[in-house]
């Protein structure tokens, strides 16, 4: 199936985002390991998708997330159904963090939220779901197995023993 432009854009964006996070986490990890790097104030200020990359554990988490996003970006570009789900879940995470920040601190990254909203509605559109083969799979799931196998579920009824009674 032909890859829509929006899918290429989203796939590309996810790749960029993932690679950025991997690079960012690697940088943090490097500066955290190198003693003089701990005082780089800029690292403390940087936040992405709710994870503050201030220490090694956070850096590892952000790096892992980055790898995950890179994989989902590749999946999106190759139109794999699982990649659609992963991309949606990632946007869900971003939106949840945005809403949490918004309601607790009263402010958040509006541009990130706007981008996520656009990506979610685009991925959820019928055309894109069809591109990822999700509509057909869903219909097949709700239709259930063929009738023959439905009948196979019941045990063969036993005819109770007893004498036949004429009408």
């Amino acid at each position, binding site marked *: 199936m032909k890859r829509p432009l929006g899918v290429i854009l989203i796939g590309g964006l996810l790749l960029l985002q993932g690679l950025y996070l991997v690079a960012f986490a690697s940088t943090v990890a490097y500066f955290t390991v190198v003693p003089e790097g701990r005082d780089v104030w800029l690292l403390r200020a940087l936040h992405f998708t709710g994870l503050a990359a201030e220490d090694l554990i956070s850096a590892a988490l952000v790096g892992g997330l980055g790898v995950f996003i890179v994989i989902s970006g590749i999946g999106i570009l190759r139109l794999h159904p699982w990649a659609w*789900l992963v991309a949606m879940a990632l946007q869900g995470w971003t939106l949840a963090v945005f809403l949490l920040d918004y309601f607790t601190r009263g402010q958040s990254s*509006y541009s990130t939220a706007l981008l996520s909203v656009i990506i979610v509605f685009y991925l*959820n559109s019928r*055309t894109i779901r069809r591109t990822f083969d999700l509509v057909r799979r869903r219909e097949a799931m709700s239709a259930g197995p063929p009738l023959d196998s439905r009948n196979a579920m*019941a*045990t063969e009824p036993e005819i109770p023993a007893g004498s*036949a009674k004429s009408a």
Partner: protein
Amino acid sequence: MENPTSDGRLTADDLALLRRCEPILCFNRGEQFYPMDVDRFLADARLCIQRPNAEAQEVVPRGQLDAVALGQTSQSAVPGTVEFLSVAEPLTAAQVLAFRKSSTLKEFHVGPGRLVRVGLLARFVDLLFSVSLLLRGKAPGGFAAGSAVQYHALQAQDERYTYYGRVVRAHGYIALQYWFFYAFNDWRSSFHGVNDHEGDWEMVTVYAAQNAQGAIAPCWIACSAHDSDGDDLRRRWDDPDIEWLGEHPIIYAGAGSHANYFFRGEYMPAVVVPYTQRLAAIGVRLRRLWARLGQGDEPSEREAEGFRIPFVDFARGDGVRLGPSQQHEWDARLLQATDYTPAPAWVDGFRGLWGLYSGDPLGENAPPGPRYERDGLQRKRWYDPVGWSGLDKVPPPNRTTEALIEQERRLCAEHDELTAKIEEHASLVSGLELEMAAMQSLQQAGRHSVITQQRLRALNADLEQSKSARAANEIAQERCRALAAKVAAGDFGDPRAHLHRPALPSTPADVRLGRLAAVWSAISIGVLLLGVAALVYFSGYLAPGILVLLGVYGFFEALFHRDVQVWIARLVVALASVTALLLLLRFFQPVVLGVVVLVGLFIIVDNLREVLT
């Protein structure tokens, strides 16, 4: 219609055909009631009358009622008055307990049950539905058990399994109706179903017709199931899914509900909750809007009918079987007269209910007899047994070729009409073209030319439409001829082509949902309510707390129903919607300004494009 009421006399051939195609009814283990004759029911019944805003009155006491007397009861002239029979005497709680211990009910095992197979919302509405039983009129507790005790006593004296036959000739078919009367429908109290009511009439129809060899043979079959009608009720004789024993169709009766099904299994008929139509219609309108925005799927028309609660109707067929060559054979009775016997008087004469009138608007009242609806008008399945299952659109096998030839003749006539119209319009078009060419040299012909051009355009469009219709007509003729050839060779096409939403049993995956899922389903609503109560009492964040609680519940539901993907997608779309709303509120002025600027730019570009071209 050749024989629409019980006035038509049955011939010996009709009787023989009825016996030839008798269905085999398969029941569940634990079933308490089987088809019986109405005479024994009436012998123990009293006739009562319920006038509006008054207590029910006994009109004919117990022991004085029979089939003849029932047919002679006069209809009350007071609107809203209901006549009904009453037989069963409710048992006490202790007697019910003793009955359950001793009866065959204990042979029935519910399995994973319906709660595990339906969604959280449906379970919640079901809770309200069950609570509403306390407020609604209903069949009293212990009533079903009382009726079962009485029925078993009758069977112990004289074991009989009865159907009431009826034969109607219409649209080239012979509709053989087999009506079954049950003393009680104990679906709710014995099998976790929707309702209980005294008296129950169900029906199976076998449609016979002349085959290509001129012999009468069964060709379709239809089952009554929960008051539905239409194409989905019937199956063709050569449908490979249908089971037969010779010419006897095998039908599976729902436990307690006695609804008839073609396949053994566990069905999930849905009951529309009354008064929810308006809410459902709003939901459907919102979903249509959502679908128009390219999101989600278009909702079906059925969804606008109201909120539905699914119930399980067990038609496993693992119990008693009634019918030819089975454990118990049929005791055949008739609803029509023969040369030797009159039609039962109650068929036409009694318009009341065949059991207790509880005053419940939601299905706990007894049903009327085979002929009448509750409002006293005739049932469709009675006055139009062929149209009831949508078969009036389908010619019988021996008339199919004839019907195709007739259709081809109609298409030929239409083809000739279209050809004449095309020739006429083509001639008009060429005349107008020539007129336009002739007028071109005349300087004053401006207005005339515009009018001629308009006429020409309209005629050309008409001409194209006629040509396209003629081309389609030619294809239709070819297809009719091809179909006629197939039919002549005995090929009537896909036997399931007429089905839209047939009743099918649950899938094995649904039935085998795990024990953990069953436990979750049983406790989830109660725990949810406890959770809400705890939030109200302990937490200051009620609204977010409830949202999180519902989210967690949704996740578990999705997990048990193997639907996590849909749950994630819905959750993310909900988050995106809330975020979009917040962004809109936060940046309302810039958004409005942006929209105004975009619209302005669009208008400028559009107008400039028109001017420049």
